[in-house]
């Protein structure tokens, strides 16, 4: 929250006047209500939208420690607010909705009030995160990105064209051009990233290597940031699901 606020990434700071229609049926249902246009026309409400989204987790935590029954309903409210906020937020010039999947799914965990339910949802989140990484590797096979030797050169040119042309003498531009022109080296980077993504398949069979998967993902995020200037920090909460993946099914009737 602090990082987003200091980066000017709250909606009331962005105050976008423009949106984009994604190829997402759920977004079309939301857009059909006109809420995105209402927000654009009533910029004074941006701050309340941000307020509800960022403060609800704290309110939930407070309610959880006071009395569980209230927290159960707050968790449901949090789920609905998160879906509404993230679906709206990503209509505007911000980031892709995929990077906010954690915000969309984690509130389900807090709706549970039995330890066993909590366990199953947390394990489900763990498997879902493993699926994200393995599917990223699979798509590179299916959509044949892996079979294009100049794939990474093309990706770097597309991703950084504004940077390359605006800052031609910068060391980072020179580094990108080096990778672009040494396509074999840059292809190996792409291949290594794919293998790293595929490595997460091991998590479907055993949780013994979950700590290594956490390290692998952090490395993946850092490399993504350095090479692609892409920041998927908001997937980090899934590391909690990996960290606690080693725990076994709790005994019956154990409460949170």
């Amino acid at each position, binding site marked *: 929250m602090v990082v987003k606020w200091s980066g000017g990434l709250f909606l009331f700071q962005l105050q976008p006047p423009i949106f984009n229609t994604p190829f997402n049926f759920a977004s079309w249902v939301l*857009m059909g209500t006109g809420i995105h246009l209402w927000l654009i026309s009533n910029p004074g409400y941006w701050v309340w939208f941000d307020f509800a989204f960022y403060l609800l987790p704290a309110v939930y935590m407070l309610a959880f420690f006071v009395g569980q029954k209230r927290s159960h309903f707050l968790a449901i409210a949090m789920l609905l607010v998160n879906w509404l906020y993230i679906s709206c937020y990503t209509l505007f*010039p911000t980031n892709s*909705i995929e990077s906010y999947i954690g915000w969309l799914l984690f509130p389900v965990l807090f709706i549970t009030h039995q330890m066993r339910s909590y366990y199953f949802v947390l394990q489900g989140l763990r498997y879902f995160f493993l699926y994200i990484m393995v599917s*990223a590797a699979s798509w590179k096979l299916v959509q044949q990105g892996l079979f294009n030797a100049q794939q990474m050169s093309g990706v770097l040119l597309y991703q950084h064209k504004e*940077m390359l042309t605006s*800052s031609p003498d910068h060391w980072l531009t020179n580094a990108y051009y080096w990778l672009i022109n040494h396509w074999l080296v840059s292809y190996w980077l792409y291949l290594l990233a794919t293998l790293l993504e595929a490595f997460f398949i091991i998590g479907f069979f055993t949780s013994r290597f979950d700590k290594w998967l956490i390290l692998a993902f952090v490395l993946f995020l850092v490399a993504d940031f350095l090479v692609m200037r892409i920041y998927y920090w908001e997937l980090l909460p899934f590391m909690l699901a990996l960290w606690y993946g080693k725990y076994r099914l709790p005994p019956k009737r154990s409460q949170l």
Partner: protein
Amino acid sequence: MYFKQLIRYKPRYFLLVVLFVLVQIFINLKRGMVLTPFFHYGMYSQQMPPQKSYEVLEVWVDRKKLRGQDFLPWQWDKIMQPLVYFKNISANNLLYYSNVKRISAAVFLPADSTDFIINCQYPLFEHWYSRYLSTILKRPVTKLDLVVRHYNLQQGKLQSTIQVQHLASTCR
């Protein structure tokens, strides 16, 4: 093991998870439209060879081009993304006519054009963008030029060409 334990614990939770998995598989097989929270996590998986030329957005403030090197990645995205969205208005509107209207009608869902179509109100956009940019640059913006320039890939580098159009003209 997970599914075995889950079905013994609460069969309806098991059914929910199975439904989730089936919907995700269906979305993957369709390879097109997604449905929150069922997305594609392709991460540059489609073939993307280097192109001969590229359209590049440029922001000129007080006759000086903004440089990516002077901004953190998220600041640079904040500067560029609204321009990408403006440039994409025609494609956005085309999506409505080619898909949104048709598919929504097929499932009896209202999809009024006023909720999806964006009008090319460039002066309004530029006025907003000027104020928006001044908060990022932390200084007033007196003169603003937003252009799309064509660059050719020659000898391993992007070389500028004389082909340049104003951002306003990209919206039809």
